[in-house]
């Protein structure tokens, strides 16, 4: 039921997320884009769960849990960076440049 449209939506959301990660420089937006990608994947899981059983839905629960934990840690890091540098623009964060 609605498998095709669900997957299409999932793909569109995922691509939007990727595009956001690639194009935006604000760490917060980037973070939200990652969440968007995760949720696109979740949507795909749910859609496939109709065909392959409960496994997909349980996976979604795990993904959401991990995403919540990641959000907590990630936001803390972003906050730390902001306190430190008064900016969350990733363009300026190139300490790892070789």
């Amino acid at each position, binding site marked *: 039921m609605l498998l095709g449209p669900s997957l299409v939506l999932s793909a569109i959301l995922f691509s939007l997320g990727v595009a956001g990660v690639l194009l935006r*420089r604000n760490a917060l937006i980037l973070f939200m884009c990652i969440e968007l990608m995760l949720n696109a994947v979740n949507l795909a899981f749910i859609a496939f769960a109709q065909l392959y059983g409960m496994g997909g839905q349980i996976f979604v629960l795990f993904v959401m849990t991990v995403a919540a934990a990641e959000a907590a840690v990630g936001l803390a890091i972003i906050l730390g960076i902001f306190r430190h540098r008064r900016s969350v623009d990733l*363009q300026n964060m190139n300490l*790892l440049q*070789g």
Partner: protein
Amino acid sequence: MHWIWLAVALPVAGFLINGALSIWRPRATTAVSVVGPAVLIGAFVVVLAAFFQLLGAPPEHPIIVNYWSWIPVGDLQINFGFQIDQLSLVMLLVITGVGSLIHLYSVGYMKADPGYARYFSYLNLFVVFMLILVLGSSFTLLFVGWEGVGLCSYLLIGFWFTDKVNADAGKKAFLVNRIGDCGFLIAMFMIWRAFGSLDFATVLQRAPGVLGVAGPAVTAITLFLFLGCTGKSAQIPLYVWLPDAMAGPTPVSALIHAATMVTAGVYLIARTNVLFAMAPISSMIVAGIGALTALFAATIGLKQYDIKKVLAYSTVSQLGYMFLGVGTGAYAAGVFHLVTHAFFKALLFLGAGSVIHAMHEAYHASHSHEDAQDMRNMGGLRHYLPVTWVVMWVATLAISGFPLFSGFFSKDEILGASFARGAQFPIYYLFYAMGLIAALITAYYMARLMAMTFHGETRTSETERSHLHDAPLTMTGPLVVLAFLSLVGGVINLPAFIGGGAGLEHWLEPVTAPAAEFFRLQVAEGATEWLLIGAAVVIGLLGLVWGYLATVRRQIVPAREAQPDVGLASLVFHKYYIDEIYDALVVRPLVWLSRVVLWRGVDQGLIDGVAVNGSARLSRGLGWVGSRLQSGQVGFYVILFMIGALWILRVVVG
């Protein structure tokens, strides 16, 4: 015979004790004076015991005593073993006998030297290696001794190393010997390839079966062995180190550079006689080089003023005689001359040492800085050093081949053998003639040496004359014993024409028998023999009288006032500029090659530049390329990540 190790162990103990004393108790001269000679005399006694045991029942085959397995590598099994036979016993007797006398002499000669204990530790160590050299039952063990005596020679030539000249002389001896040793090593490799063994017993026994007579293999092996001999025994073209080796203390010159070490090459050829007998071309080269060296070195001796330099060239020349002997196939004659030469040349050197000792003390007393070794400063010393004078004349007559002295028999035998071999290969007649001329020159320069040193006007000043005197008993004692041996040393091998039994020749027969299967020398008998002897005697006497008269009649001025020689005399005085020629042809190109090609090119360019710094530069460059990936931009990382993820997806799905 298992106990023969004692003969080696005693000098080892002497080396250790004297070495320890030289480090911790350098003033304990009395202990050194006792230990140094005592261990040698002990070794001599051991050797005598072995000799008398074998004298009763001479063995047909060498007695081989294996002590332990030394180098067991796959098919190569080398034992640390000693080989006792007639030849090694002769050598052992010479080394420990003459060695004991020289050790005793050294007690007097070196007493005042601050390095007294060090001197004796080196001297003992030398005897250790020399004994290993002649006792070793394999080429490998012989080589250990061969290198060991080279080391001790180096240490003793440069004994007074604070003088750069002496240190350089030591280095020269060491380096020149390396060339010869390289040949020896190649010969050993070839022997191992051919026989799969390096034991004398195996190699010499199987040689006729494995190697073809006069074939390329045996010729190459013997020539490489002979290259080793030319280094160690100072033959053309590698003789140049020996005259310089006179920088060492005089007893060292007597022991190492006259009586024992330099004869190692003759011993090696006598030991491997069957190989040389199978290679007539090699034998001819050995004899030719020997004859040429005998003649060439003798001519240089004519114009030397340093008393030790004359004797050094004389040694080179006499070693040439020995090689002429063994190259002719007269192995017993070569060894015979080796023995008699050990007596009279050791005596000559020790006598020269006694003269130098006296001159040195006299100059020391008068605070003069004249050269105590220059014969032009001596003259008329017979009044002040009568004992030395008499024994030196004995040695001179012996080396000149004066009838019934030891050198007469041995030299005569070599020349006779060379003449006899001429029937087979006419070139040996030429070698004979060269030997004969060399005998004339030998007699001449020896008479010149005696006349300049002991006869004529005394060219020292009044103050010095009162200090000239014979050496103490520890020095004159060995001189007298050696003089006796030089006088009667011929009895060990009296030829048949005066009713002798050729003792040494028969004694050595078990050793030389394998070679005798390839040819037998038909030594002249009857009228021809007497003619040859007569020629040698006349030539020797002519040289003696001529040399003596020519020198005594001439006005000799002390070295300080002497005019430099001109013309041919200058050429000979400068040793035909051989050292300079070698310097220009070998040393300088080698130094250039080492400095420019090997040092700047290979070492600094290739190893430092390409290998060491190059690898560092390469990894730094690669690191720079890799570091371009680390832009620090998160977006860039994500793109790469995406590309990677898509690529994996493609591989997995597609």
